[in-house]
């Protein structure tokens, strides 16, 4: 199994009663911040990912969130560029994985293609190209895209990016959302025809089909409580794969889990509980439903599915803003404990759900630089080595990993199929 470290640049010094007065996205008052703390948040964030790269993680991952206090990364390409160079300079063979630029949000998809191509060139072919559809509050409120157009933009932008990377001759693009008289980006990515493409989603069957039919990896984040949502989502994915006659290769599946590890279970709770609560209470839990699920962003059948299913795909989201440590752990939103506890649980999750790529978020909420280092280091020493061989006894090849890092990318579809169309 490939194991990567994911981090976010959250602001760590919000007031104790923040979540009672403010939302964590869109309207969050900037005056709550202090310049030194903002600087430190970015420094510790990048240092955390560099530490993970030095300690032997297979990849480093990072996300995009505009106008958000829990992740001040407005453009993950900037982070990717910094990490690509720094890891190259230290000769660290680690995948650079922006989980991604949202193509439902992007109004300049060719620029996204260019930025990712640059990261691939700077890193010498170590880019894993993540493209989420995007969070509605970010795409629609922060970037003004009508909610009903978010998916449609994603569906147009992704083939444009892939074509811009792949085509050797200039082409004109006459899209609904973007028109270009001549697309001929410099540079093209080193990985041809394309770096491995990963789609992060929340379980929409249309997104599953897109990933499976086009040979993209699919990535799922466990913040809604993986014990509650994971079995539903993963089972739905593999069922879809079965129906489409796609091999059940675990390496096409990625999962992001928040992990805190200390010498013993009780030490782990003592050290991390308040930081974990900070993350969920003041982070995604403080983004209200009406900003995450804006009308138009979900198709009519999708709305009916969600209403009928009592929001099962959203796990314990409704309780997140006030959830305490025990509730967060019970939901499976965090795996926390001794190296043995954590290892056992992660192997169980991976095996049960056929996950071949695990991403662990080890820098959580208000964690200090020192505590983050402890968490990353202990995980790298005591947990990571035991996860590597989860799929060693099965004859699968990893087609969704850069070849420079040992992957064996399969030929991608020459033309994108089943791009979801109408959500």
């Amino acid at each position: 199994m490939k194991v990567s470290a994911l981090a976010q640049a959250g602001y760590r010094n919000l007031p104790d009663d923040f979540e009672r007065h403010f939302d964590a996205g869109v309207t969050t008052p900037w005056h709550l911040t202090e310049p030194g703390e903002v600087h430190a948040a970015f420094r510790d964030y990048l240092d955390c990912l560099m530490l993970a790269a030095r300690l032997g993680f297979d990849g480093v991952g990072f996300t995009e969130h505009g106008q958000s206090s829990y992740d001040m990364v407005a453009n993950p390409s900037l982070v990717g560029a910094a990490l690509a160079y720094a890891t190259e300079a230290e000769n660290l063979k680690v995948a650079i994985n922006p989980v991604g630029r949202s193509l439902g949000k992007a109004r300049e998809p060719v620029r996204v293609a260019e930025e990712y191509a640059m990261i691939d060139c700077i890193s010498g072919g170590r880019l894993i190209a993540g493209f989420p559809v995007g969070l509605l509050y970010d795409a629609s409120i922060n970037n003004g895209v009508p909610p009903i157009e978010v998916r449609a933009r994603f569906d147009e932008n992704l083939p444009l990016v892939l074509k811009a990377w792949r085509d050797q001759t200039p082409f004109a693009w006459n899209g609904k959302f973007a028109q270009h008289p001549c697309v001929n980006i410099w540079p093209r990515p080193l990985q041809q025809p394309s770096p491995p493409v990963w789609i992060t989603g929340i379980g929409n069957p249309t997104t599953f089909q897109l990933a499976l039919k086009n040979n993209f990896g699919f990535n799922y984040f466990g913040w809604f409580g993986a014990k509650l949502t994971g079995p539903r989502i993963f089972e739905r994915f593999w069922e879809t794969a079965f129906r489409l006659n796609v091999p059940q290769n675990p390496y096409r599946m990625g999962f992001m889990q928040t992990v805190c590890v200390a010498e013993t279970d009780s030490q782990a709770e003592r050290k991390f509980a308040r930081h974990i609560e900070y993350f969920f209470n003041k982070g995604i839990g403080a983004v209200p439903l009406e900003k995450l699920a804006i009308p138009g962003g979900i198709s009519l059948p999708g709305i009916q599915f969600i209403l009928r299913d009592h929001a099962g795909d959203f796990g314990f989201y409704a309780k997140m803003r006030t959830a305490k440590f025990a509730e967060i752990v019970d939901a499976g939103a965090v795996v926390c404990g001794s190296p043995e506890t954590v290892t056992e649980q992660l192997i169980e999750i991976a095996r049960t759900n056929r996950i071949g790529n695990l991403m662990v978020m080890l820098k959580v909420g208000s964690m200090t630089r020192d505590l983050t280092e402890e968490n990353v280091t202990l995980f790298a020493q005591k947990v990571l080595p035991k996860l590597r061989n989860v799929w060693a006894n099965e004859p699968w090849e990893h087609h969704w990993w850069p070849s420079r890092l040992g992957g064996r990318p399969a030929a991608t579809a020459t033309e994108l199929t089943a791009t979801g169309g109408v959500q």
Partner: protein
Amino acid sequence: MTAVSAEIRERSVDVWNGTVKLRFKIAGSAGAPLIYFHPAAGLFFDPFLSALAVDHTVYAPEHPGTSAGDPDAIHKVDSIWDLVLLYEEAIRRLDLPAAPVAIGQSFGGMMAAELAAHFPSLFKSLILLNPLGLWREDLPITNWMTTPPTALPALLFRDAQHPAAKAMFTPPKDPEEALSRTAHMIWTFGCTGKFVWPIPERGLHKRLHRISTPTLIVWGADDGLVPAGYAKEFGQAITTSRIEIIPNCGHIPQAEQGDTTMRLVRDFLGSSDADLDRPREVSR
């Protein structure tokens, strides 16, 4: 307003080169044609429309994507320009015996105004009830699409306890029907939102001067969604208009002050024939 239930018929009109079937709900048969453009939440055949159907034939189109069984029609229409042309085409295909009266509420008011600005001779007269379509930084319009459902009654009504508010926001008893109605309303907000997101202004301020139709602008004085200050903006831009501000009234005057609204509408419709060619002054 006395609740009179009218018999409602349906007619679908092929438009947009046959790719969209625009569905009209039709009530009344004897009177002159009247087209009603529904608000962002969709078409509900309420007592106001039933009352209008007494002396008019009311044609109420359903915004593309909001007709039962045809949610994907919205993806055929990309811009306000598309939408205006599509509606004009549909109205032409109705083959009405005379130029219709147009009434539009909120989002529907914006649509009616857009059509009247694009096609100045399309309507005989125009009634705008708290229309969207303009934007002033000092008169912020609340984003209803990101408003929690529990806050909608207070946003739309001056008196959230008004019987019309209760009728509008009390879900049906049957759970399946309630689910279906909630899902439909969310999707309808998405479909109409395509043409007003993120700012409900698509250049109408540049086009309003083209409207030469006798126009009545009605506004609830206490509109919490689109402030009544916009009445003057519309009134000044449409030189053939008259403004009526209804006190103790929010965003949906035909529901919250139904009798007053109906009286204003009837008075206007009764007099507008004679005054068709004479520009009106803004009265308020």
